[in-house]
């Protein structure tokens, strides 16, 4: 890193421009939808003048707002549950030896390989069966029956999100040396402390990456969600798909722009705070703190014993997603 070799420029340039291309690939469609949200033409791709009408119309569009709210609610709850369950699963599969591990593994990755539409139909059949029995047991009739809705959507979303989280976290666990955890335990840390202080900080990139993927998957899921939703539980993808029969209304572009803007703003804000925090912390703490608790520090015992030699200037870094190796 620190020593630039001659001729290293060309690959750097190639990597940089390839990366720029990928970002362009991601952002050009977003730019189009942002542009459309300000286009006064309702249909067609022609630019007919600037307007903010769609944004004011959005405030009155109950259906779209409810659908957006439903989507966010479901995605947040599902992600939260899935991150906990998925991390636990990956720990069990990776750090434990037990009979039936391979079988358990196959079950965990089932959601990853099952075609969505089959899952959707199967879940519809399954929920209708179980809810039917449940309602019979509780003596509930047509009026007060327990029905499909947000809870059933969350059950379905948690299931596939958990599998994806487990997959990503396991990749992180793979690169974490178990002797690190053993060392912590030898020094008297119990299982929980070891996990909280050693394992979790080290696999944080994986956990957060998994959480981001789970959130994205849940937010965008259309096929499964459709089958397991119920009255009033329409999510944004379902609402938008319905509109495709005519054309996507500019209000959909408007809400997409708002979601895009809000997430950009918030995450930029979070980054700003993070940057301020890391600047402040890097001064008083110095490079390596007092090492009384060295054994439970995540950076000791890492595969790379001479990490300190690689001249990284930042200490334990409070990264959002990245990091793990200080």
């Amino acid at each position, binding site marked *: 890193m620190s020593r630039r070799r001659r001729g290293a420029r060309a690959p750097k340039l190639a990597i940089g421009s390839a990366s720029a291309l990928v970002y362009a690939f991601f952002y050009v469609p977003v730019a189009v939808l942002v542009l459309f949200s300000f286009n006064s033409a309702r249909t067609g791709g022609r630019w007919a003048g600037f307007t903010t009408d769609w944004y004011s119309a959005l405030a009155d569009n109950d259906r779209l707002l409810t659908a957006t709210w439903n989507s966010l609610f479901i995605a947040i709850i599902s992600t939260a549950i899935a991150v906990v369950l998925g991390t636990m699963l990956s720990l069990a599969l990776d750090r434990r030896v037990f009979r039936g591990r391979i079988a358990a593994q196959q079950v965990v990755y*089932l959601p990853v390989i099952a075609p969505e539409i089959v899952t959707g139909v*199967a879940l519809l059949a399954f929920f209708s069966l179980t809810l039917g029995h449940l309602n019979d047991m509780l003596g509930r009739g047509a009026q007060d029956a327990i029905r499909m809705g947000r809870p059933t959507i969350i059950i379905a979303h948690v299931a596939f999100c958990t599998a994806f989280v487990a997959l990503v976290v396991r*990749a992180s666990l793979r690169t974490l040396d178990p002797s690190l955890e053993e060392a912590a335990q030898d020094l008297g840390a119990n299982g929980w*402390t070891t996990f909280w202080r050693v394992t979790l900080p080290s696999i944080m990139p994986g956990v957060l990456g998994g959480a981001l993927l789970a959130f994205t998957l849940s937010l965008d899921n259309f096929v499964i969600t459709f089958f397991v939703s119920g009255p009033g539980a329409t999510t944004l993808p379902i609402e938008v798909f319905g509109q495709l029969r005519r054309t996507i209304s500019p209000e959909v572009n408007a809400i997409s722009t708002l979601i895009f803007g809000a997430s950009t703003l918030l995450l930029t804000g979070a980054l700003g705070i*993070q940057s301020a925090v890391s600047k402040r912390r890097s001064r008083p703490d110095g490079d390596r703190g007092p090492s009384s608790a060295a054994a439970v520090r995540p950076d000791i015992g890492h595969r790379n014993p001479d990490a300190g030699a690689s001249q990284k200037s930042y200490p334990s870094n409070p990264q959002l997603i990245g990091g793990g190796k200080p």
Partner: protein
Amino acid sequence: MAEHTAPSTSPGPSSTRAPARRRVAPLLAPGLLWISVAYVVPGLLVVVYSFLTPKLGGGVVWEATLDSWDQIVAKGRRSTAGWGTVGAAVLRGAAAAAAVSVPAVAAARYLGRRISASLALAALLGALVAVNHLAAEYNNYTAVFARSVVWSALATIICIGLALPLAVFISSRRSPVTKNALLIAVMIPFWTSMLVRTYAIRFLFANTGPLNNLLETLGLDRIVFLNTRFAVILGLVYTALPFMILPLYAAAERVDRAQMEAARDLGARPPQVFADVFLPMVKPGLIVGGVMVFVLSVSQYLVPTLLGGGKTNMIANLLELQFGEAFNWPLGAAIAALFSVVTLVSLYATVGRRDQEQFL
């Protein structure tokens, strides 16, 4: 929350096995149970359904029959299929193996490795090509399978190609803030509805859209892009790319640059450093990302529907027909069951045995 000073029980000399046996159930049970309820039980239901009789209006009549399987195997067979198809498949496979073995062997020589692995790779690829050709030409149902698998494999390769430089680029930034900013920039577009973005892609690539208008202004011919394979594969890449970038980045972040420096100092050429030092280190991320991209792509419904326009269909379109308009749930279930097997086999054929145990 565990308090800072909570040592108490000393688990004795470092044996991860002993305590492991005791504590596996609480870790495993909740997640496993949840997934079982949502997938295993309905999954078994699918297998059972494939042996039942279809009911008009959807669902099944509980009368056992092999009709669905007969439909796939016997009626699905193409009228043109015969021994000629088999022969053509074998020829194609051999040709592909021969074509690949040349550069593969050359690469192995260059990297100073044994060529046996390259030859094995070429043989595997040849076999895959042959099986794929047979599937595509022999039977109407497996034709859709073959197409879905090949397009998803292509999308996976393209995703790796795009994600590798990006992961290296991000992980070689110095400031954690920059890294996070770049990573977040990958994810943010994906929080706006996929449907809306796909619609934007449709607009961009339409026959009368801006890209084609640009081509015309430049004096070139318009290109039909929408509703072609190219559009569908591009859509698959677009939807699945972050699922490659994140795990690959997490792996690249852990790459030991000192080791790469050392390899370079010892005289290794950049491709050698890449193949012998870098790739093995990012392998877990590569495999996890690859598996996710592949499986997400292979069962995609919205991409072939919106960008394929009914002319370029994948497996989900076939399933949608059976579970929807056709009211033939048993046939849909049989196709789904068979397809799950195909997906599994494709994964196991590509991800080597050692890696499966390690990463899957």
